[in-house]
């Protein structure tokens, strides 16, 4: 399971125009997109009308100028220049508890969501250090501690895992690890001046609107790709992983969600294009990394355009990916089992093949079909503010679904949308409220494999009546002292594990999040 950049914000959100250098925004006919987003706008309007229309605050953000944190305190005491930083340091703490109610379960297998009531938790503590090495050169180092207990051993949910912080290797014993260590070089090509505000993994500075940004090292690809300023920091917003990024974007990473590699970003006023190559795990969903990046890799390409629609800012991002990793095609696993029933799940371990613990002698298994394979997908990510403090978003992705999950989750296609509002409208400017819906599907080959009793990294009930796995989520985050957020959350999930025979399931959540 992957985890997010805890302060993920898109470029538009992290940037301010330097005084006197307001950038011209492209403004053209977005009526087609607006029409297709009508439903989302209606949700947003509902939020608007429910609130008193009196505030001027900006959209939900991870770090505010008047937030109570170390860098702001130093700045306010004249000890730090937050707009031209040579270093910065931030931190966060997040504790999430989830309570799952019993669900309908006529049958189950090793990868099923358990039918009884369960509680899950995660606790994470992160420090963010950044330093300027020379003009345009920055280094970042992020150690993190996590403790967790997943629902049903992190099995039974495909694209709608209830807590985005969960990792595949987590345990209740706190684990300290190096989350990120990377270097970034910005090369300016002129244009307007753009102020980058001080943030975790971003030194406060001024850059050119025409610039090339190169990053090399250890990071999560979500630090650079598929950002969305509306969903923003998942530690303040939605709990469910379906809203963190495309559920069907199987970006290569280790079992915690981090990768090694390089990313190049070219910014040209309202446009940005990104390319990146990152390392995959040695075996699907494991912590060990395969550093043969010339042989096994994940390539990403993203095109972004920022716009203004009816006076409100928004952005559209198109993302394509291709993974070349050692993985199994579902059809190959089925064919191997059909041709020789000895190539079943139970025989994997006996033959020293990596599998997910199934001992089903009558089911196919991916272990018999692993070889270098490619997985491809394309997606779109749209964010749009519909008022000064209310934004809507929609993400959709289609992946080929021929091969198993390598690093993220089991979904092969996904769609999510929702709306968030910041609380200035009801005189609580740091509060955040949101509603959203996410749905994901699996491919026909994936469904056939699961129906035969096969399991992948996360799901497999022994049988399957295939259907989309959907979640609806609503949350409210209450801010205290400009640094602490208390959140309450409700999620309703249909067809857990893409199985119409099981569920639905209700999950209640609570979160304490602090930034400093």
């Amino acid at each position, binding site marked *: 399971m992957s985890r997010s950049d805890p302060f993920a914000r898109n470029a538009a959100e992290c940037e301010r125009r330097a005084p006197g250098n307001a950038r011209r925004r492209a403004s053209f006919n977005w009526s087609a997109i607006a029409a297709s987003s009508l439903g989302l706008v209606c949700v947003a309007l509902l939020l608007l009308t429910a609130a008193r229309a009196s505030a001027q605050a900006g959209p939900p953000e991870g770090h505010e100028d008047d937030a109570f944190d170390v860098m702001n305190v*130093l*700045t306010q005491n*004249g*000890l*730090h*220049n937050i707009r031209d930083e*040579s*270093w910065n*340091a931030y931190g966060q703490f997040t504790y999430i508890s989830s309570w799952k109610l019993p669900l309908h379960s006529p049958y189950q297998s090793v990868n099923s969501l358990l039918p009884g009531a369960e509680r899950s938790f995660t606790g994470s503590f992160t*420090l963010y*250090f950044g*330093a300027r090495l020379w003009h345009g050169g920055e280094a970042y*180092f992020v*150690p993190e501690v996590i403790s967790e207990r997943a629902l049903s051993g992190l099995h039974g949910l495909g694209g709608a895992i209830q807590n985005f912080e969960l990792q595949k290797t987590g345990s209740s014993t706190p684990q*300290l*690890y*190096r*989350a990120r*260590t990377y270097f970034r070089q910005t090369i300016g090509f002129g244009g307007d001046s753009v102020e980058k505000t001080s943030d975790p993994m971003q030194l406060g500075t001024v850059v050119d609107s025409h610039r090339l940004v190169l990053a090399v090292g*250890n990071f999560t690809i979500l630090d650079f790709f598929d950002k969305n300023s509306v969903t923003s920091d998942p530690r303040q917003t939605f709990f469910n992983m379906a809203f963190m990024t495309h559920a069907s974007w199987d970006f290569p990473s*280790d079992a*915690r969600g*981090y990768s*090694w590699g390089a990313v190049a970003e070219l910014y040209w006023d309202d446009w940005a294009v990104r390319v990146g190559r990152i390392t995959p795990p*040695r075996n699907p969903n494991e*912590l*060990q*990394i*395969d*550093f043969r990046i010339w042989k096994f890799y994940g390539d990403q390409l993203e095109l972004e355009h920022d716009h203004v629609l009816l006076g409100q800012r928004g952005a559209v991002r198109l993302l394509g990916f291709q993974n070349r990793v050692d993985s199994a095609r579902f059809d190959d696993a089925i064919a191997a089992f059909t041709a020789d029933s000895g190539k079943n799940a139970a025989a994997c371990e006996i033959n020293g093949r990596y599998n997910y613990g199934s001992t089903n002698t009558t089911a196919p298994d991916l272990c018999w079909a692993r070889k270098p394979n490619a997985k491809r997908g394309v997606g779109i990510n749209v964010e749009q503010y519909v008022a000064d403090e209310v934004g809507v978003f929609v993400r959709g992705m289609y992946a080929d679904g021929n091969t198993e999950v390598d690093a993220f989750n089991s979904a092969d296609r996904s769609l999510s949308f929702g709306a968030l509002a910041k609380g200035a409208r009801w005189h609580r400017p740091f509060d955040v409220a949101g509603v959203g819906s996410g749905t994901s599907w699996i491919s026909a080959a994936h469904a056939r494999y699961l129906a035969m009793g096969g399991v992948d990294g996360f799901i497999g009930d022994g049988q399957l009546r295939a259907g989309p796995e959907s979640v609806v989520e609503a949350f409210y985050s209450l801010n205290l002292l400009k640094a602490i957020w208390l959140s309450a959350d409700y999620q309703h999930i249909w067809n857990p594990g893409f199985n119409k025979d099981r569920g639905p399931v209700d999950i209640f959540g609570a979160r304490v999040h602090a930034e400093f």
Partner: protein
Amino acid sequence: MRNSSPSSRLFFAGVVLAVVSLAHTAAAQSAAQGFALERLYLSAPGGGWFVMDDLSMHGGLGGALSLTTGYSRKPLRVGTGSERLAVVSDQLFTDFGFAATVDRFRLYLNFDAPISTKGRSGTVNGYDFAAPSLTLSNSPDSFADARIGTDVRVLGEADSPFRLGVGAQLLFPTGKRFDYDSDGTYRAMGRALVAGDVGSFSYAGQLGAHVRPLNESPAPASPRGSELLFGAAGGLKFPFSDSAGTVIVAGPEVFGETAFNSFFGSRSTGVEGLLTARMEAISDRGALLRLKLGAGGGIDPHFGAPEWRLVCAIELSDQFVHVQEH
């Protein structure tokens, strides 16, 4: 209570003795578990030397960053003669350090990230030693024991001929014993520190205690519990260029430790020496940049003192000046 005869008591004592003896034999044949092998207990970020500390904290609120990387060859050799076994033959690490200073006080964090730790497995004196097999590929994000520490200069000014300070460190068991980068328990250190600058000569020294609960006696080349820490360093300053404030400081550092319960015993004492050189440059805005290089090895090679070692570091120290003053 029921009375027992002398013969039955003798029999009972014999049984207990036999059980204890068997248990001891079983233990002697058990596998060595691994421990925190690294003995290069780095000074705090901004500390100047590799292990000693120059106690030069000064001014108002300030900070320091350090990036240290090092390689040691055969830091754990067990047995003698034909039984000689390099359980850890190669150890490569990178350490990230962060410090905040106020006047004469310092608070710091260190994260030691092992990059590669390898060796040979084998049996010595009835103990099975499993060599670590840590690489960046199979442990892409691991840390050895993380450290938080504080130092304070109690006597002297930042550049005076004699400075006296004290320091304390707490090490968290964030590493893994089988990787030979943790004891699996919390550890602590307390040190008395001296340093000074007399003309072009700089010196530093330390005497302290390493509170180490792990005592794996009689397993060969293993920790024997808490230790005395000692060390000294001295070097000459040379101007590096015409630019003001850029100097090179070159000289040796010698440091070591001995277990309290086998004080300066031959199998419980390690001493290591490093020849060090560092270039110190001060930027226009007052930041101090240090590039450090050290090479050396075990003088009295107990565990952790390698055959030879290379270590280098980059260190940046700065004061948080009032923005309005710029």
